[in-house]
């Protein structure tokens, strides 16, 4: 591969806008979102429920259903704008070059079909191989995610697996075609902590091994801290801050990120009250003019009624705020 191809980010999202046209009005679920992910890089996408993380994922997959629609921006995958592709070209990409894993492993596998059926169909959807070969690949993929005696497990139905095992199967299905990008939509949220750690470890290992880019959507900062290389923080449909994980978590620039980090209990805060972000997330139907966080922000001034533009304060660190925190303290 040439160095130019290497430099090209696997995924580049520019000014993405996804709106839902509901009876109550236009819901701006994804609002001017831009980010990029390089080969082998794990990007954490953090935000509260309803902040637009999942819709961002579905927008990349081209799987936004009515009444939702992508109304603007670009989704460049290996330099190609996915929004220009028709449905059948998108289908060729899905599961093949871009894979997705979902939150609830109890629900993502079809309860009435054998694991074998669900894996083999996945292979056959993109490669013209015979069933035996498809089956062999399925066995290999199950082995890859640490499922013992994959031959026998293929014959099983999803309900015969534990939650963690099912998520491993889902990851195995995602890895079948060695995709260049995996979008993981809160895949560990429904699992208990020890299993979560195993899955995170497994996912990280696979990404490193195959140089797969990954977007890990979560609301759990501790997951991102242990897993991701970079992190983007999403609030009310907008990305408010982004940068290297350690830098963002140690020295958050956006008041919202700072609030999020402050509300996580940790060892060195023993005995002190947890801080809380006052107020509630604004409704995406009725976003305030200007910065969506202004009503809850103790640093807000009059000019926050203007929409802040995202700016790169320090190399590799950008923030969408007029009055970012502790710029001085950042090394």
């Amino acid at each position, binding site marked *: 591969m040439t160095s130019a191809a290497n430099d090209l980010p696997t995924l580049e999202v520019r000014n993405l806008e996804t709106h839902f046209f509901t009876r109550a009005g236009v819901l701006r679920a994804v609002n001017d979102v831009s980010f990029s992910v390089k080969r082998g890089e794990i990007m954490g996408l953090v935000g509260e429920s309803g902040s637009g993380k999942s819709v961002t994922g579905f927008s990349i997959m081209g*799987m936004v259903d009515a009444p939702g629609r992508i109304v603007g921006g670009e989704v460049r995958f290996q330099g190609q704008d996915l929004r220009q592709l028709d449905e059948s070209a998108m289908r060729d990409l899905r599961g093949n070059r871009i894979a*997705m894993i979902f939150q609830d492993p109890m629900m993502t*596998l079809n309860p009435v*079909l054998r694991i074998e059926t669900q894996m083999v*169909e996945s292979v056959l959807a993109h490669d013209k191989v015979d069933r035996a070969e498809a089956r062999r690949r399925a066995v290999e993929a199950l082995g890859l995610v640490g499922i013992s005696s994959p031959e026998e497990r293929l014959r099983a*139905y999803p309900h015969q697996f534990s939650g963690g095992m099912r998520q491993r199967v889902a990851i195995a299905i995602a890895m079948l075609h060695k995709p260049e990008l995996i979008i993981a939509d809160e895949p560990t949220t429904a699992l208990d902590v020890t299993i979560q750690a195993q899955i995170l470890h497994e996912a990280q290992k696979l990404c490193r091994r195959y140089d797969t880019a990954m977007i890990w959507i979560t609301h759990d900062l501790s997951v991102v801290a242990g897993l991701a290389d970079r992190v983007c923080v999403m609030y009310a449909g907008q990305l408010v801050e982004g940068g290297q994980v350690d830098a963002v978590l140690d020295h958050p620039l956006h008041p919202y990120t700072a609030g999020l980090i402050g509300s996580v209990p940790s060892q060195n805060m023993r005995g002190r009250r947890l801080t809380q972000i006052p107020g509630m997330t604004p409704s995406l139907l009725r976003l305030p003019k200007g910065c969506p966080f202004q009503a809850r922000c103790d640093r807000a001034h009059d000019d926050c009624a203007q929409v802040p533009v995202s700016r790169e304060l320090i190399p590799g660190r950008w923030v969408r705020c007029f009055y970012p925190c502790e710029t001085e303290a950042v090394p």
Partner: protein
Amino acid sequence: MLVYLIRRLAQSILVLLVMAVLVFVGIFAVGNPVDVLINPEADLQEQQATIERLGLDLPLHEQLFVFMGNAVKGDFGRSFLHGEPAMEIILTRLPATMELAVVALAISLVFGVLFGLWAGLKPYAFSGKTIMAGSILGFSLPNFWQGLMLILIFAVFLGWLPAGGRGETTEFLGMRVSFLTADGWSHILLPALNLAIFKMCLVIRLARAGTREAALQDYVKFARAKGLSPRRIVLVHILKNIMIPVVTVVGLELGSMIAFAVVTETVFAWPGIGKLLIDSIVNLDRPVVVAYLVLTVFMFVIINLTVDLIYSVLDPRVRLAEVKA
């Protein structure tokens, strides 16, 4: 599995016994068959002889006792009206009803599931709404009226299909059947459609509800994310999930289609057991009615059992041994 089957069959036998007693007593309460059967001009001695021959002179509990004793041996007595063994009369007419019911079942299942899937996938489209509106008509309008309308349209106005009767029949496994000849098919189509419409509408609604539910499930999203074609998602992932309720209902309805095809058989002059039942009730032909109902219950038992077995094939989470029958 075997224990499960044995327990189910034992329960069924109990049901059969209780039902036979109830029907026997019920028909006894309705009226005296003697009034209907015996020529009023016959003299007293002849009347008396007939009553004794039919065993109607005995008190109810003795009649019941004799009947049950014979029934256990498989003898349901002779028809008061025809003089032939009751079960035999029913069995000779059963194939006609069976084939009608099976064709109706096939129509309702195939079209019901197809329309239901369509309506479930496109709930807001004109086509989807039309299907749902049609299904409401289908099970709201009385069955006999639908039958008459079918005759009016296809037999009278268009003249495409015959209005009634069974048409040409052929021998098949020792039964007279219509479905092997073109003429037979032309005769069976209208009554089968008439019998199917109600069930089809039921299946449409079930399939639509199931489809709408399944389409929102994560496994459908995941299937899309795997890059599967919409056809495979609908025909494998969704269809197999919606078949569970559909099979239950259709299985039960098959029984009721065979047992209570009375209206359709009357409207289309179809010589099946439904018509036989009506005639027998009118004539208070008790052996035939009881034998008919015993057969019906037996059929329901078998169908329910089959449905449970199909369940375990459709839904791997169902374990038959754990089912409290």
